[in-house]
């Protein structure tokens, strides 16, 4: 959502305007990006490696010095004491002292935010229990598994009850079960009012969780829109059909437009709005029973690859416009 589109009554958790950053050596990380995140939003900031996501999050949380432009957190200049008080950062890399005990890491972080120790101890107990780390509270950071370390980063970021939680690839390298429990926890936080900005490579999660999305590549915003509207822009979708009977790779054995993957699997590609009824009817006429049907690639992934891959770049140049709803 661009700043101009924001409702006058809605408070922005984050406003970024013409933000630029060039690293020493001339690498342009951000080339004048602008977007806003509304209070209470669950916002996805997606992009390939090196696109500028972590730089953006670093500037917002005060870890990266901006080149020019504005970044405001709940109206406060990013990097200011007021802005930092509002933000909880879950970084991509483990950045706690591995020799400290889990509970000490949390209580110290709360202390840096000026919280009384007694309150911090209570808060750490609550968070560690919710995230399943309570039994590990006396363990050193280095003794934790990868998933536990990720959870610890989340707990640490939440110690001071931030209004804006910035998650930079928080589930990288985490097993499926742990990832699900983490998302469940974070969704609960969002429902309770915490604004969340998420950067992830798990696009299906971004699609399921996030309300709004921005796609960044080469330091520029390619898309900045509502997730539902964005997903509607998918032009074609490919489905994988599991067939009970054997299918043959000739015109009589499969519906037109379908591709035989193996003797019990077909792939069909349909245009936006076309629907699958025609395909199912055709299969029915041929006496083929569909046991299962799934999208080959999730819609967000399809759009993401299209925009940030070589084809996407050509398309962007050809149209001359960024996708924006």
């Amino acid at each position: 959502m661009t700043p101009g589109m924001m409702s006058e009554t809605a408070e922005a958790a984050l406003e970024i305007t013409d933000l630029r950053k060039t690293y020493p050596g001339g690498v342009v990380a951000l080339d004048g990006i602008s977007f806003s995140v509304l209070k209470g939003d669950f916002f996805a900031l997606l992009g390939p490696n090196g696109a500028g996501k972590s730089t953006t999050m670093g500037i917002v949380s005060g870890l990266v010095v901006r080149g020019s432009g504005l970044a405001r957190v709940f109206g406060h200049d990013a990097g200011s004491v007021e802005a930092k008080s509002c933000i909880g950062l879950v970084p991509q890399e483990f950045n706690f002292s591995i020799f400290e005990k889990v509970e000490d890491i949390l209580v110290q972080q709360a202390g840096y935010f000026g919280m009384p120790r007694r309150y911090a101890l209570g808060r750490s107990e609550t968070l560690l229990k919710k995230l399943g780390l309570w039994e590990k509270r006396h363990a050193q950071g280095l003794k934790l598994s990868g998933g536990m370390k990720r959870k610890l980063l989340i707990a640490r970021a939440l110690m001071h009850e931030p209004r804006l939680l910035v998650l930079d690839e928080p589930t990288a390298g985490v097993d499926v079960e742990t990832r699900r429990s983490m998302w469940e926890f974070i969704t609960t936080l969002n429902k309770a009012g915490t604004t969340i900005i998420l950067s992830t490579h798990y696009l299906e999660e971004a699609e399921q969780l996030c309300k709004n999305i921005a796609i960044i590549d080469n330091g520029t915003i390619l898309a900045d829109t509502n997730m539902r509207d964005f997903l509607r822009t998918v032009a074609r979708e490919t489905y994988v059909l599991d067939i009970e009977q054997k299918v043959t790779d000739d015109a009589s054995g499969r519906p037109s437009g379908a591709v035989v993957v193996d003797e019990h699997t077909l792939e069909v590609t349909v245009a936006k709005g076309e629907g699958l009824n025609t395909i199912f009817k055709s299969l029915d006429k041929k006496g083929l029973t569909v046991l299962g049907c799934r999208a080959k690639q999730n819609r967000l992934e399809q759009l993401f690859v299209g925009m940030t891959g070589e084809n996407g770049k050509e398309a962007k140049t050809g149209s001359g416009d960024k996708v924006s709803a």
Partner: protein
Amino acid sequence: MRAAQQWRAFLTLLGKEVGRVFRIWTQTLLPSAITMTLYFVIFGSFIGDRIQDMQGHSYVAFIVPGLIMMAVLTNSYANVSSSFFGNKFQKSIEELLVSPMPSWLIVAGYTAGGMARGLIVGAIVTAISLFFVPLQVHAWSVIVVFVVLTSAVFSLAGLLNGIYARKFDDVSIVPTFVLTPLTYLGGVFYSVTLLPLVWQQISRLNPILYMVNGFRYGFLGISDVPVAGGLMILITLCLGLLVLDVYLIEKGVRLKS
């Protein structure tokens, strides 16, 4: 951040630093105790008796203030440079950088941590010295002012080293090639009045000379250099390094990309 919150943040960082000193006491407290005991044994008992009095005091009594000061300044420096660089290396420094702690408070926390270690080690070395020579005190106020300011100066200098260090070698280069020679040539083991005039003049460019002599004045009432001048040098160094450290952290030099 309100004043009460800043105070809690300061105590948290100080507590973490002091906790680290005691957690790894074999690396932080024990080495100085052993080294200084050896100095006292060798220079006090084995050799000291054969050396003539220095400015009216036995040789061991003469070197005690310098050895205490040497322990204070090296430990203050080493604590902050290694701890700060360690936090940089592990990236746990980001815990502070994302917090609302102002830069001056981060500097204050690390400096206080370095001072704590320096003063603890100083107290240990003083206690060990009592086995070799009775405690003499000329002016408590001078002792306190000089030891506190010296530990502050070297903590701030250690922080400067920690900020600029890119690898572990960078943390050990300054103590090895700068601090140790300056300390040994700073009048810990001798009076500079024994040196030829040229070397006396050169020695006066060494700030550690003023710290050692000011501290010695507090114990024995003797000094090779003006104590007030030493105090001025200490205050100037302290303020200069404080301003520089706060500026560097505020700008994120070698901390923020």
